[in-house]
């Protein structure tokens, strides 16, 4: 069992189909497969214990991922936007490494590092003769190691074994289900689980992948039109910027008719954005996917039919589904548990636990998977009576005010719907009286006016009085990381 099987099968079934387009160059499935075998051969000869790639999306990304898998060596992509110090700290944890990067600052002769420039790597793997290779078939071998974004401290190294990733793909994608004319636009960064899973899903579906290395909404729209893109995955901030850009009349002329489906995930989607997207793209099927690095990506889906039904409904309960992340996929079991591990009823908020063959729950030095296979996600949420999952935030972000648990999402969801408010975050701040109190960081819509008193009374009207913030401050923008995750730790620091 090896994720390289996906590329091997794609190359077997449709060798000449276009697998990848990057900056105008095309690569077939057969070319990609041979290049990955050549890469595997290079990795094996270097006697490295890890393969790492630090850089933007390029053909080197799928080739290094699949080549490392064939060689039985963990693939560890690293965020190229990190500081040199942070990168060196991570590299120290994956030694000896075969490193593919454009960043020549990282060559350090004293360590056990094989450094290769991305361009040289690509020239080599496309020119070398196809080697004889026996793929490692151990299902428990590590396929991918991803450093979590470290929004709460030192980055953890999440471990995904071949069995997890293979289970995920076999459970969610049908082989060669893509038609020849289908093309997917990949703009998520290569060091993110969504970047890894989009490559594997597309390869197993034999879908044409179009890489957009540096997300830019105008470029995304142009590529969609020029390459007749049929599907794409976006994080919420990307969709927000695309919607903003589309309101600019310069883009009226673009033909986006080829676009059939958009999946989104990786962070909380503001309700007004998905509503606008559904109106702007009436012929596009939207899917909301919720998953974590530790679960090999998607574990729940709000499918296109759910979106349409919610959008058309006058029933508030059904309409609210646009804020839900949907239902567990068939291979995943999901439970909401309380403080003492007891299973909670519908509408009760608690920690989300999941179980299934794609769930790893394992890090480089420790494993948080329970003996019976359940994984505590540290995400909190609740199920409605129809079984739709609603996320409330990270368990660690819950504000405990005078013994009462307040999830920031409750206040943020309400305020996001206010016309004067562009963005908002609720965080806990130390309070002598309550232990913790609610602080609200607010970004206003350009030229909108609303006072602190008006915000407080709006919250007072709609939620329990304990939700009314002790402090409200206005800012020009809120801090997000590059995949659209709100950096609450920084906001908390603003208030203390």
């Amino acid at each position, binding site marked *: 069992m090896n994720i390289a099987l996906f590329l091997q099968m794609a190359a077997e079934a449709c060798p000449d189909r276009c697998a990848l387009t990057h900056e105008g160059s095309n690569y077939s499935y057969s070319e990609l497969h041979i290049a990955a075998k050549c890469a595997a051969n290079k990795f094996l000869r270097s006697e490295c214990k890890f393969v790492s790639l630090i850089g933007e999306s390029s053909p080197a990304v799928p080739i290094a991922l699949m080549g490392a898998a064939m060689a039985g060596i963990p693939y560890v992509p690293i965020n190229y936007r990190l500081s040199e110090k942070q990168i060196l700290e991570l590299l120290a944890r994956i030694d000896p490494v075969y490193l593919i990067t454009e960043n020549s600052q990282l060559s350090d002769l004293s360590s056990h590092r094989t450094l290769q420039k991305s361009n040289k790597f690509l020239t080599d793997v496309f020119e070398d003769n196809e080697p004889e290779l026996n793929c490692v078939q*151990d299902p428990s071998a590590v396929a991918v190691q991803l450093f979590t974004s470290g929004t709460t401290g030192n980055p953890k190294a999440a471990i995904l074994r071949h*069995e997890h990733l293979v289970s995920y793909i*076999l459970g969610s994608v049908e*082989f060669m289900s893509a038609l020849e004319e289908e093309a997917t636009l990949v703009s998520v960064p290569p060091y993110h689980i969504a970047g890894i899973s989009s490559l594997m899903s597309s390869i197993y*579906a034999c879908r044409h992948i179009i890489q957009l290395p540096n997300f830019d909404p105008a470029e995304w729209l142009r590529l969609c039109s020029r390459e007749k893109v049929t599907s794409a995955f976006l994080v919420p901030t990307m969709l927000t910027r695309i919607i903003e850009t589309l309101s600019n009349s310069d883009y009226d002329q673009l033909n986006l008719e080829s676009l059939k*489906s958009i999946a989104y995930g990786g962070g909380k989607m503001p309700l007004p954005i998905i509503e606008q997207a559904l109106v702007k793209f009436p012929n596009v099927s939207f899917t909301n996917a919720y998953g974590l690095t530790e679960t090999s*990506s998607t574990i729940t889906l709000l499918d296109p039919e759910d979106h349409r039904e919610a959008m058309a409904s006058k029933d508030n309960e059904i309409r609210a589904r646009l804020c839900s992340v949907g239902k567990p996929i068939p291979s995943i079991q999901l439970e909401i548990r309380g403080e003492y591990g007891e299973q909670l009823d519908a509408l009760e908020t608690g920690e989300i636990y999941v179980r299934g063959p794609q769930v790893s729950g394992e890090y480089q030095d420790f494993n948080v998977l329970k003996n019976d296979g359940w994984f505590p996600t540290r995400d909190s949420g609740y199920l409605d009576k129809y079984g739709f999952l609603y996320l409330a935030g990270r368990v660690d972000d819950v504000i405990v005010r005078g013994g009462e648990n307040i999830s920031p999402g409750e206040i943020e969801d309400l305020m996001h719907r206010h016309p004067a408010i562009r963005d908002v975050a609720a965080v806990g701040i130390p309070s002598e009286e309550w232990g913790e109190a609610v602080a609200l960081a607010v970004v206003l819509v350009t030229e909108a006016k609303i006072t602190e008193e008006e915000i407080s009374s709006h919250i007072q009207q709609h939620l329990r009085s304990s939700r009314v913030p002790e402090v409200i401050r206005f800012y020009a923008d809120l801090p997000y990381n590059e995949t659209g995750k709100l950096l609450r730790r920084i906001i908390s620091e603003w208030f203390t």
Partner: protein
Amino acid sequence: MLKPGSRLKSSVCDAEIMVIKAMSGNVLTCGGAPMSEEPKKAQANQEQMRGCLIGKRYVNKDETIEVLCVKSGKGSIYCNGEELMTKDTKKLPSSD
């Protein structure tokens, strides 16, 4: 020993499979001849040559056996003398 992840080849055609679910003691055949990691050429049973298709999953009646065809072939896959059938998988919308 059959175990999940095992890769087996046909001894009568090009077919290759990966075991997804299996129990010890099961014998998988293709075109009437045993499948193995390194098979020797064997004579096909012409009654068991209806073919298997890459990407299809094959299961027995109670779904205790499941294999994925990773390379198409002319032989059909049997387990302990029972022909495996293609499994219908529920199609999910693409989420990534």
